[in-house]
């Protein structure tokens, strides 16, 4: 966890890795975080690490590339491409003069990346930390790998340090590790939702991050929290309304569709209720002091930029903006 002093505000960090179990809405939260930061005047980059990701849909733009695209004021988005990252690295860092001399890079790259452990990971993490180091952006939000692989990704500079004893890569990993392990600059955001597997994976991931890396967990974001329908004591009223005489009375007032409406309400109540134990297990299992943010389930038709804006708004409220 963080060292002495309070943790910096989520958006005051420089590099946020957003991860979570598949299907919890990792990408939508990452794009909303980016949008919110940009709205608050931060030059922001959102980067999708998974090439097959759909980040562009969340900003309502066309396909993204390694070179960042401006998606709105102060907000850029890019898609990680490790081969491009390698080329950039060779050009900028090693000052390799004639790229053509390296030979058929595309073909050799695949081999190296597959054969040498952590190469793809380091090229990803290296590019992201580089953007931070060079101050190209105030905040870099990473739509990172899912829980299963993110520890390996974040731990890659250290792993490479252990494996590669000499060479230029070795010199490079030091500053990456500096940025990654500084809680004032880097944090992991774990997205989850109140269901069994996502909660279990979240707790496991946070434990692994703490055991296996020195990277700070900045926040847990619980996505798709279903609304509580009734206040204190109101559930008894609802139960009473579900009884035959009440149904009849209601039907006479608002039509026969009331049966469907009551069935729907019962479903809504039981769905909400079924989530409660998972939320409790999550809260009980998380380290003390780790901020938890809640985002409501979006009952919306849209799932593009409009939905991203709605999530950004909810996030802003949760963060006290």
């Amino acid at each position: 966890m963080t060292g002495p002093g309070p943790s910096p505000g989520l958006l005051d960090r420089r590099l946020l890795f957003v991860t979570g179990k598949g299907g919890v809405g990792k990408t939508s939260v990452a794009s909303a975080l980016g949008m919110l930061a940009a709205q608050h005047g931060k030059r922001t980059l959102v980067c999708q690490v998974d090439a097959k990701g759909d980040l562009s849909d969340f900003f309502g733009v066309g396909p993204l590339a390694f070179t960042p695209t401006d998606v709105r004021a102060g907000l850029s988005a890019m898609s990680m491409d490790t081969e491009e990252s390698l080329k950039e690295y060779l050009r900028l860092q090693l000052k390799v003069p004639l790229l053509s001399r390296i030979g058929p890079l595309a073909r050799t790259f695949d081999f190296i990346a597959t054969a040498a452990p952590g190469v793809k990971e380091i090229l990803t993490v290296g590019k992201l930390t580089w953007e931070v180091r060079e101050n190209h952006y105030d905040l870099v939000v990473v739509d990172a790998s899912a829980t299963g692989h993110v520890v390996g990704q974040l731990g890659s500079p250290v792993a490479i340090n252990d494996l590669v004893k000499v060479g230029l890569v070795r010199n490079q990993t030091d500053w990456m590790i500096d940025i990654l392990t500084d809680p004032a600059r880097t944090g992991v955001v774990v997205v989850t939702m109140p269901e069994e597997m996502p909660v279990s994976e979240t707790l496991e991931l946070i434990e692994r991050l703490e055991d296996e890396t020195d990277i700070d967990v900045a926040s847990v974001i619980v996505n798709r929290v279903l609304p509580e329908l009734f206040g204190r004591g109101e559930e008894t009223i609802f139960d009473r309304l579900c009884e035959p005489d009440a149904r009849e009375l209601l039907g006479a007032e608002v039509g026969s569709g009331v049966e469907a409406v009551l069935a729907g309400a019962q479903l809504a109540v039981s769905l909400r209720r079924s989530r409660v134990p998972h939320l409790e297990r999550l809260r009980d299992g998380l380290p003390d002091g780790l901020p938890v943010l809640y985002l409501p389930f979006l009952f919306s038709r849209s799932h593009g930029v409009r939905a991203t804006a709605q999530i950004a708004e909810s996030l802003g409220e949760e963060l006290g903006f």
Partner: protein
Amino acid sequence: MARRRHQPAPVEGLEQLCAAKEVLVSTGSGGVGKTTTAAAVGATAAAQMGIKVLVLTVDPARRLANALGMERFGNVETRVPHEAFVAAGADPQGELWAAMLDTKQSWDDLIRLHAPDAATRDAILANPLYQNITGKFVQSHDYVAMERLYEIHTSGRYDLIVVDTPPTRNAVDFLDAPERMADFFSSKLLRWLIAPYSSRVVGFASKPFYSVADRILGTQFLEDIAEFFMLFQTMYDGFVERARAVTELMGSNQTSFLVVSTLEVAPAREAEYFLELLSARRHHVGALVLNKVLPEVLLDRDGTRSAKALAKRSPELADALTGGLGLDADVRHVSHVLGEIGDRYLDYQVVAAREAEQRKELSEVPDLVLSVPYFTDDIHSLERLLNLGEQLW
């Protein structure tokens, strides 16, 4: 609609599918209930059809393992005890076996089985890169899952094998894994790269590459890699042969795919993509299984009207009801309850309508579309698994 090579008659039910096929591959994006679906299909096939079934899963939740009557899955195939079925109220005609894919363990087994001699075997197992490569690479999960499937299928130990695929974002990686591995071992590139280290003579053509690679990674490291792949070369023929065989099995009429999804936006898009891809490659899509489907009652048109009336007239209705039913409650609370019921119905209807649309689009390709209602809890008992299986049957 895509043309299919096998199965001239449409698949009418899961039982027919389980009877006709030897391998069912459960695919879909993360979090859609792929593992649970595979387990439910396997358990139900064993219980109802009197056949010997193996569920080969990747990373089951502990409670799912418990549901199958086991503390924990192991890499070894284990029979789900007959008593577990009896306790779940079933009288199984067949046998259910389960195994988990432990990537590292499976790789070690593979090396032990196929290494040409003890020295090569030990050298590979001791290679510092071996553990890294076999343990950490997603591709290596995919590949070894295929190897394992192939080994089990050719052993003839089971009538039906239900495979849960690794949680890759891209299900195609799974299908392509054997071929990619074979390509990799047969590539000229690999030989070219290994050559200087085996002959200790750096070829003229490859010199610039090595000097750069050495500067980046360090010579020792490249030598370690080279040693590792030279050792692997000795098993080259076996890899290529098995890769071809398992690719053939995937495309044969013994194999069918279950595409599992929910109707949420992202998983549905993934499922759509995968359905198209399987058709294009002429794989057999046995069924589309849709999990967490919201009930049709949410799409009721009369319901919409009543919900709107409730939301709009809640204060006035609350007055009438409180009196009419003799409710012992504050009228404002009654009003809130009524308004909330109406509003939430309309909220859920928006989602249900979007999902119905999505379902229609997805249903165009497969013969068989099966829906599983939204369970409010996860499935942790064999009884519930069998229950789910029966709904799919």
